[in-house]
């Protein structure tokens, strides 16, 4: 006899955990199923940028929704996920002056969506952010962006959902999902089954395994974020910092946490192995990352790094997620494949999916994320 609820969520990352919390807010009963432990994969290993700047313009309403949740997260979750609204700046290098035009262009469009960005260059940039290297030409500064602690976020959402009555099963790997009559029946590797009229798939890099069972495979590719962290040093860098460039190796970023460690991310991403739930940082990628960090902020060259890590993120070819209802099966919904950019919008995704499921519609634009865009023929 299967356990029954209004909604089954498969995938206990930030999307699934926040959806569980907001679905409880709508009065729906929720069972959240997670293969390992809540928030351990992409949600727990990413850089921790809580930024709206740089997202596609069509994603800004979703990002705005999310930022409201981040700002009240301590009260909402009863836990501190170390959210700091200390700004975000992305810069370009001297050899790509055309990117300044792109930044200005983006800033104009973003303003219309409520995101105010400040373009800085020359002395104005250096006075405000003296740590930049000589090759940095200009930057776009977003005062109301910031960062948070990914290790803490999804678990905090899940605990809050649980306190409101969501049922969460960790160590529960779903190996089969079918619609039988009006209900979805999902089966775990150990034989347990769960039943609900609504199924939400938030399984990250493993999302395709489930969407395929409903005739809608997606070309998702697993990749490993390239992450390092320094020893603790006196707090001196407020914003999260990133580089705007078309070259993957150059896309490094860093943020300093309140305790003083500086988290470094980016440059070449590594392989990850969803079947083994492991991802390893290729040492060459660490070396390349450090080289590009030195170019971006030379004074960081004095610091030691004490640890590197990676994780398993799911990437789709257009770097946009699958989000919204199934194109083949009623009652089925998706939110996965966030292509390394899901952290900031995560709580907004959860709230939006809950709204779609509970009310049937949302004002947040999600048409670009339809799974139907991958249908053949």
């Amino acid at each position: 006899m299967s356990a029954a609820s209004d909604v089954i969520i498969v995938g206990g990352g930030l999307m699934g955990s926040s959806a569980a919390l907001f679905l409880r807010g709508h009065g729906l009963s929720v069972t959240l199923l997670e293969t390992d432990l809540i928030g351990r994969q992409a949600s727990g290993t990413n850089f921790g940028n809580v930024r709206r700047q740089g997202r596609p313009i069509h994603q800004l309403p979703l990002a705005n929704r999310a930022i409201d949740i981040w700002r009240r997260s301590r009260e909402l979750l009863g836990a501190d996920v170390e959210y700091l609204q200390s700004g975000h700046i992305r810069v370009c290098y001297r050899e790509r002056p055309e990117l300044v035009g792109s930044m200005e262009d983006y800033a104009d469009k973003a303003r219309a969506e409520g995101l105010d960005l400040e373009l800085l260059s020359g002395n104005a940039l250096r006075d405000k952010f003296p740590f930049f290297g000589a090759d940095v030409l200009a930057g776009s500064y977003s005062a109301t962006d910031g960062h948070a602690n990914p290790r803490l976020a999804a678990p905090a959402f899940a605990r809050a959902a649980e306190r409101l009555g969501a049922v969460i099963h960790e160590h529960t790997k779903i190996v089969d999902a079918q619609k039988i009559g009006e209900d979805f029946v999902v089966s775990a590797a150990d034989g347990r089954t769960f039943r609900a009229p609504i199924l939400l798939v938030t399984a990250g890099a493993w999302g395709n395994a489930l969407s395929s069972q409903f005739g809608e495979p997606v070309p998702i590719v697993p990749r490993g974020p390239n992450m390092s962290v320094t020893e603790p040093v006196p707090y001196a860098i407020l914003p999260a910092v990133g580089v705007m460039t078309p070259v993957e190796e150059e896309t490094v970023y860093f943020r300093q946490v309140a305790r003083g460690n500086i988290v470094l991310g980016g440059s070449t991403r590594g392989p990850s192995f969803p079947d083994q739930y492991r991802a390893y940082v290729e040492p060459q990628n660490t070396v390349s990352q450090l080289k590009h960090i030195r170019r971006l902020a030379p004074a960081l060259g004095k610091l030691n790094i004490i640890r590197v890590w990676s994780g398993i993120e799911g990437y789709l070819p257009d770097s946009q997620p699958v989000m919204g209802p199934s194109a083949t099966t009623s009652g089925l919904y998706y939110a996965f494949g966030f292509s390394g950019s899901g952290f900031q919008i995560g709580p907004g995704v959860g709230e939006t999916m809950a709204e779609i499921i509970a009310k049937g519609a949302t004002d947040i634009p999600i048409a670009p994320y339809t799974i139907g865009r991958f249908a053949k023929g």
Partner: protein
Amino acid sequence: MAEPRIIIVGAGPAGTRAAEACVQAGIRPIVLDEGRRDGGQIYRRQPDNFTRPYTKLYGTEAPRAQALHETFDGLNDRIDYCPETLVWNIADGHVRTATRTMESALPFDALLLCTGATDRLMPVKGWQFAGSYSLGGAQVALKSQAVSIGHKVVFMGSGPLLYLVASQYVQAGADVVAVLDTAPYSARIKALPDLLAVPSVLWNGVALTLALKRAGVMVRNSVKPLEILGDAADGVSGIRFRVGDGAEQMIACDAVAMGHHLRPETQLADLARCKFAFDPVTRQWLPERDGDGRSSIAGVYLAGDGAKILGARSAEASGRLTALAALGDLGLPVDKGEMASLRGDVGTYAKFARGLATAFPWPAEQAGALPDEAILCRCEGVTAGDLRAVMRETGAKEANRAKAFSRVGMGRCQGRYCGLAAAELIAAQAGIPVERVGRLRGQAPVKPINISIGDTDA
């Protein structure tokens, strides 16, 4: 056929004998070591301009130490020896090395990890104060720098090293106030059959204890450490303890050397993706290896205390045996009879090691008994109470999960000194066997590396 590329990590007893075996087989191995000199820890060499003779430095082990050092010195022009070189990661058949100025990737056909061990620590309230040292650290201070760690030293913990270092300090003229052994004396009797596997080492231990008592050093067994007293500015000022269920006692001191035997440095084996298994005798996770030192990864071999604590004598046999296994696996001729004999040697020490674990047990129960205000993770300043609170709040009861939420083990030392005690505390709090807590997953770099590493403009 090109000469096989053999890399040996560690120039202590195991690495030295492994290098010797390779050279004898006509191979020129690369020997990488973090230290300035070869010798490892127990046979650590003093700086060139020091004058103490071997007998003064190594006591009864002087002949072995001298033989080992002379062997390594004799190999020098037949190996590629790279001191002050850290192996910080392993991937794709390469070791990644870091010196003060350079980062390199060195390919290997066979990798012999001879990474040795550190002390195994059980935190005591106050162990974060300046003047707290590991037993091994106290020994390094004397052996390689001719200093005592303090004006009045207390030695506390369990294991043969406790009595050895204390008596070395006494002989060198340091003021040793007390030796506080957390093991009951009866445990040594119980372990006698296994300890007799290596009678000469057993005799050393008995003689050391007698010598300490004759020198007027207070020696106590069944000690329960309560607190290292001190203050933030000046450090250690004393130690509070009980003997058995007796009354609380306090001794004034300015240095405490602590430890409960050793734990292997297995981080590189972990990064090489070797399989690990829980060893119930020592309550530690150890990399799996066969009787010859082969790990679960083809081409990666594990020898000496870096794989399992069997002591320096066993490490020499293990280093040679493992090198012969690697050479044989690479298709070179090896003496199977000698390998069988070396296997027997290593087996003898394994029996002795079991005796040591019985005679000088790891006081696992002290972790659960740590007061909430005791610092558990020295690097991050996290208390036992902090970890307990995180466990209550989040339900975390697995080592990496608890680390992610509490920061225990997240500091510079990567849990070398708090990890085992933290696992015991988690097990006690969650009411589960310590094996179920798991082990901290290794993360590169195994020691801190500089962001400027490999910067050719620097």
